[in-house]
Structure formats: structure tokens, C-alpha cells
């Protein structure tokens, strides 16, 4: 699409054209098999559609010039090994740090994944006109501020890649632990994120963190059916029915993680994947704490420290885990701090404090399934609300 965007000089027109072509490809490839040169196929199809559209829109400015530039695009028979890079360029444009994060997510789903505005709006429980406006503003901003449509040069990659991975992770998380709405897991968004993550691995085969992220998503995703009980309620890891885990997903996740680790450049996503792998394989709690130690060293963010504190408690030292949680004041607005704290207090037999912490988590949680879970915990402690 970025090839098109470049020759058309107009992201919106290119987007509409490729949108159609990419969607068509996704529908056709599973049925007809992948064409010899998928990248070229997309560009050829998109070009045809763009030409159609320009022909239809008589009033379109620079029409003749645009048509001439389109004619010069490579056709399916040409050697266009650069095309994956062109797709990647679009990913980096959509995930540019000069765009607000929610704009990055919406643009990526629209331009790279080919979701319609209506689909994205539904996925994020946003009114369609609101989302459409967000997209229009974001695209206008891409042009107005001069965000380039290209893969950043090598020296910029290290600072730009994490932003791209984060957008994919956000899409997955919104599907895995929906922050609003009454369903806990939205499989469509999880699947979209995994697909996007695979695309990044194809496009950047030398980036261990891209594989680390894919492994993480596969491993977490493999448990998503087990995370919801019969009534749509949250089931915690230790209570999950392992028969519901997707063994193929786990195997693929483990293979992907191995490939990432072979590159010997560990990063936060690889370590999180290693932890998820530990859970999937039933590693000892001590082994999981060891990986968390490494992760906290690379990424001492509060959320990582929260998870490490829980791991420490689960490995047997509940008091130490609680002490570590006390250091996380900056997460006071984060419901999982309070539900984790409540859980550890309950294990320590401090029921009154546990109930107060569950209550605080309940105040902060917007997801209905999680709220039901927290209320059931409160009820167990004799607190009905």
C-alpha cells in the first residue's frame, strides 16, 4: 500500500484502493491458495481498483498525472521483492509516535489489517461516527505534519520498533482483557493482533522482539477459552481447565519463542513470553520468579514489578510479595494492583483488608465479567455488594 501511497501522494486514495485489495486477498487466499507473489498481487489489484476509482471521479485533481504514475507501477510479473518493505512502511507510518496512541491503533487496524470503520468502532465499543472522525483526523495529521510513509532508516529502528509492537500488544490486550463491555475476551481482536504480529515477523525476520511478541500472544491466546467460565466469568490461571488450552497454539508459541531466543538479544516481550511458556508448561514458581527478575531488570515498569510481586508471593513468600506491592503507589488507579493485593491479603488470612482491596478494585473496573468475579470474591469474604 505504501508504494501506492507514494505514487498517488495521497494516503486516503491509496488506502481505499488497497483496503479493497487486501480484504479481497484475505478472503481469497485461504480458498484459492496464496498467489506466487502476494505483494505484487496486492499492488496489481489495488492499482486496478485505484484506476477504476480515479476514472469514476472525474473531478479528481491531477487525474491525468496520477494515472500516468500508476501505469508505471510494477505488475505482478515483475520482481518486486521490495513490496514487503512497502507494507512495513505503512505499519511504521500508522504507529508513528507523533500520533496519539488511540489514533495509532485505529489507523493500524484500518490501513494495515483492513478492518472497516464499522468493525473497528464495534471492537472498541465506540460510536462509528466518532471513530470515523478519529481516522479522518489522524490521516489529515499524517499529511499535515509530514509523517513519512517509509520504513525508518536503520538508526531510527531501535526507537521506533517498540512503538509498533506496543500497538499490536494493545490491540491484543483490548481483545484479551476488554476494558469495557460485558464480554471478557473479544476473540476477533486477539486474532487480528496475532495476524498482525505474524506479518511483522515475516517483514522483520531479524527482530527477536517481534518474535517474542508473537510468542507471547500465541501463548496467552492459547488460554483464552479457558479464561472464561460457563457463565462468562473470569477464571484465574490456577483454576483453569487445562483441557481447554489450545495445544497447537502453545506449541507454535514455544517454537516461536525458541526462534526468538536463538537470536540471543533478549527483550521484554521475549521474557514475558518465557513467563507465559512457564505457566503453559507447568514450570516451578521459583523458575517463573527468576524470569521475572530478569524482566524487571530490563523493564522496571510498575506493571512488571506488580507481576513480579505476585510471582514472588505465589512462589511461597506472600509477605514479601505484599511488601513489594506496597511500593507501587503510582499504580493506585490500576484495578489489577488492588485485586492482586486483595488476593495476597486473603491468602495471608487478612480478610478485612482483603475485602477493602477487592472493593477498591471493583470501583476501578469497567469490565462486567471482571466485576462479577470481584463481587464473588467479596461474597466469599462475607461482603455482599
Amino acid at each position, binding site marked *: 500500500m505504501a508504494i501506492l501511497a507514494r505514487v498517488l501522494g495521497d494516503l486516503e486514495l491509496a488506502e481505499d484502493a488497497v483496503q479493497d485489495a487486501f480484504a479481497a486477498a484475505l478472503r481469497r487466499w485461504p480458498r484459492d491458495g496464496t498467489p506466487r507473489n502476494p505483494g505484487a498481487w496486492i499492488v496489481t489489484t489495488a492499482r486496478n481498483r485505484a484506476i477504476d476509482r480515479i476514472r469514476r471521479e472525474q473531478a479528481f485533481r491531477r487525474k491525468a498525472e496520477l494515472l500516468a504514475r500508476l501505469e508505471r507501477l510494477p505488475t505482478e510479473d515483475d520482481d518486486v521483492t521490495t513490496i514487503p518493505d512497502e507494507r512495513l512502511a505503512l505499519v511504521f507510518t500508522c504507529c*508513528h509516535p*507523533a500520533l496519539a496512541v488511540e489514533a495509532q491503533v485505529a489507523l493500524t487496524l484500518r490501513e494495515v489489517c483492513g478492518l472497516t470503520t464499522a468493525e473497528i468502532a464495534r471492537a472498541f465499543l465506540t460510536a462509528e461516527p466518532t471513530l470515523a472522525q478519529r481516522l479522518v483526523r489522524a490521516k489529515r495529521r499524517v499529511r*499535515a*505534519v*509530514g*509523517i*513519512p510513509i517509509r520504513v*525508518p532508516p536503520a538508526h*531510527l529502528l531501535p526507537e521506533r520498533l517498540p512503538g509498533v509492537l506496543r500497538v499490536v500488544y494493545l490491540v491484543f490486550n483490548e481483545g484479551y482483557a476488554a476494558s469495557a463491555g460485558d464480554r471478557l475476551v473479544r476473540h476477533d481482536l486477539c486474532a487480528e493482533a496475532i495476524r498482525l504480529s505474524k506479518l511483522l515477523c515475516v517483514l522483520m525476520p531479524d527482530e527477536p522482539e517481534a518474535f517474542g511478541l508473537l510468542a507471547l500472544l500465541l501463548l496467552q491466546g492459547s488460554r483464552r477459552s479457558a479464561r472464561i467460565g460457563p457463565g462468562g466469568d473470569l477464571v484465574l490461571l490456577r483454576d483453569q481447565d487445562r483441557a481447554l488450552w489450545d495445544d497447537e497454539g502453545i506449541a507454535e508459541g514455544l517454537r516461536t519463542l525458541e526462534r526468538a531466543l536463538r537470536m540471543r538479544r533478549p527483550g521484554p516481550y521475549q521474557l514475558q513470553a518465557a513467563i507465559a511458556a512457564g505457566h503453559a508448561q507447568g514450570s516451578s514458581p521459583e523458575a517463573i520468579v527468576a524470569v521475572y527478575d530478569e524482566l524487571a531488570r530490563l523493564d522496571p515498569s510498575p506493571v512488571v514489578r506488580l507481576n513480579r510481586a505476585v510471582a514472588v508471593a505465589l512462589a511461597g513468600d506472600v509477605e514479601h510479595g505484599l511488601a513489594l506491592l506496597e511500593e507501587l503507589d503510582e499504580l493506585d488507579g490500576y484495578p489489577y494492583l488492588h485485586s492482586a493485593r486483595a488476593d495476597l491479603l486473603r491468602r495471608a488470612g487478612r480478610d478485612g483488608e482483603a475485602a477493602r482491596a477487592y472493593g477498591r478494585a471493583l470501583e476501578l473496573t469497567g469490565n462486567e465479567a471482571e466485576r462479577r468475579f470481584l463481587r464473588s470474591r467479596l461474597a466469599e469474604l462475607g461482603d455482599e455488594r
Partner: protein
Amino acid sequence: MRYALLVYSDQSSWDGIGEEEAARLRAEAMPQWITLFEEMGKADPDVVGYELESASEAKVVRVRDGERIVTDGPFADTKEVVGGIFLTTLPDLDEAIRIASLVPAAAYGSLEIRPLADHGDAG
């Protein structure tokens, strides 16, 4: 694309320090400025930069109902105020970000990148 790079910093940190100390701080930052000017000149030989005098010397002019109201400035009541402007033509935002990040004030203040409007050029 034509960009304005607005340099925001807390100028009050320069108040109350002696001339000698100010000269020392300037000299300390000099190598960074030289790098910046080299990189700016390479990216756009026609770049210009204006360093503004301290905001305490500013006047703010308003005209209300035909009457002129002049007050001592600066206009903004934020701690950091505009202390300088660069005007430059660069290929894209990434290059503007790179250049902006080389401005020494980016490390203690903020650089705001604004494209120039493509109409009604007052110059």
C-alpha cells in the same frame, strides 16, 4: 516541508546567576550548539534561527474597543516560554524530530515542531 521549531524553556533559571556563571554555562553547551548548527546547515543551508531576549523584557499588546492595552509580558503564564525559533525546510517530520532533539534545550525544556501554514504568508 517548511517547519518552525519553537524552543520552550524555563528562562527563569538564568535569572539571578552571575555573568561569569552564565558565560560558563553557555561555554559548556557550546559544543552541542555547534553540532546542532552543523546538522541544521547540512539539512537545510537556508535555515534561520532567532534567539529572543528574556521574556521579562517582553510587552504584550492588546486592542479592545479601539483602545490599546500594553502590559509587561510575557503572554504565556507557563513556566516554560518561547525562547527562540528556527525556520527550516526539511523532507519530513522524522528529520524535524531529529534536528529538534539536537537542540540543547530539548534536554531540559521542550521543542515544539509546527509546519508553516501554506497560505497567507505574511512575509
